[in-house]
């Protein structure tokens, strides 16, 4: 296999395994949140963006309405639009490839692609990570959903604790530096204050507005918080992948 000689493909495949595997937790948490098997699969097949999927089931699990779940997932998907712009400038996909590339545009495929210097490698990295994660994420979502459905009382297994840990794990890689930590604390506080006063699901949307206002009026890095959940190049370098105000 000549393809395996490409560094970007190798990075893409290893990130596929690392990311794809945690589809198990999504699948299990989704069915214990009250979604059925096909609703769970629809999220992984059609929505395909880990954070947004967890947001959707997180709001449902907390007793929030379908509208609130949809809104939280949609707002969290906003960054994929930014990735789309970066990838379009980088890869220039044309015709039907553009529509497929759009669906495969997530944190990890973007990071794998933008982490390479050579245009051919950027392209290979994007497709290797995108297709690899898509296949494994859906496969392991199905495994998790089938296993989770047979668990009985989810609380007995601490699955609500698993949801807490999953969200913290999605947040963690983005907390690099003082500003993101401050944003997280402010939004967490706004949420806690709002919980007793508004319907379930709405505190999350209030936090989204607070975060958007901070982003609009602050002068921090332009790519603040746009880190992938799993860093494809974690073994090669540590710390910021940020490029500052210049963008990529």
């Amino acid at each position, binding site marked *: 296999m000549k393809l395996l000689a490409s560094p970007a493909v190798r990075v893409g495949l290893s990130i596929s395994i690392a990311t794809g595997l945690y589809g198990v937790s999504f699948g299990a948490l989704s069915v214990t949140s009250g979604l059925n098997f096909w609703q769970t699969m629809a999220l992984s097949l059609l929505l395909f963006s880990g954070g947004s999927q967890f947001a959707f089931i997180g709001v449902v699990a907390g007793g929030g309405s379908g509208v609130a779940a949809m809104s939280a997932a949609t707002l969290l998907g906003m960054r994929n639009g930014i990735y789309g712009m970066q990838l379009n400038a980088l890869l220039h996909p044309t015709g039907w490839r553009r529509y497929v590339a759009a669906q495969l545009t997530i944190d990890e495929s973007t990071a794998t692609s933008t982490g390479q210097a050579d245009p051919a490698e950027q392209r290979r990295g994007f497709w290797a990570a995108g297709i690899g994660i898509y296949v494994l994420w859906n496969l392991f979502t199905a495994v998790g959903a089938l296993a989770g459905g047979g668990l009985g009382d989810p609380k007995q297994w601490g699955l609500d*604790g698993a949801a807490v840990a999953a969200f913290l*794990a999605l947040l963690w890689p983005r907390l690099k530096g003082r500003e993101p930590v401050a944003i997280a604390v402010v939004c967490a506080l706004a949420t806690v204050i709002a919980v007793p006063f508004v319907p379930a699901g709405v505190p*999350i949307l209030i936090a989204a507005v607070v975060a958007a206002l901070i982003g*609009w009026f602050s002068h921090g890095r*332009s790519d603040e918080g746009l880190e992938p959940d799993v860093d494809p190049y974690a073994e090669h370098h540590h710390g910021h992948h940020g490029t500052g105000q210049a963008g990529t």
Partner: protein
Amino acid sequence: MNLWIWLLLACALAYAWKLVGYFVPARFLKDPRMSRVAGTMTIGLLASLTIVNTVASGQSLAADARLGALAVAAIALALRAPFLLVVVAGASTAALLRLIGWN
């Protein structure tokens, strides 16, 4: 059935966000404000989802076994544990705390 409608709408909107990026003129990338809002919103939403899942029970606040799950998950993440291990650690902590009687 109701949930299906919102779920499919969420899927359609998620794809719309992704696709819109491929069709907007590249000069929008020159404005760092949009990227920054997308990033701060990601942080804010994930922080909010974390805390809601930790302390909210419907419309009231509760301090239960989930707080232990949060603490253990934070320790696991600080020790650079992989995602799945963090999730398993959170679940086992909550389950254990309930087993010893902290609701």
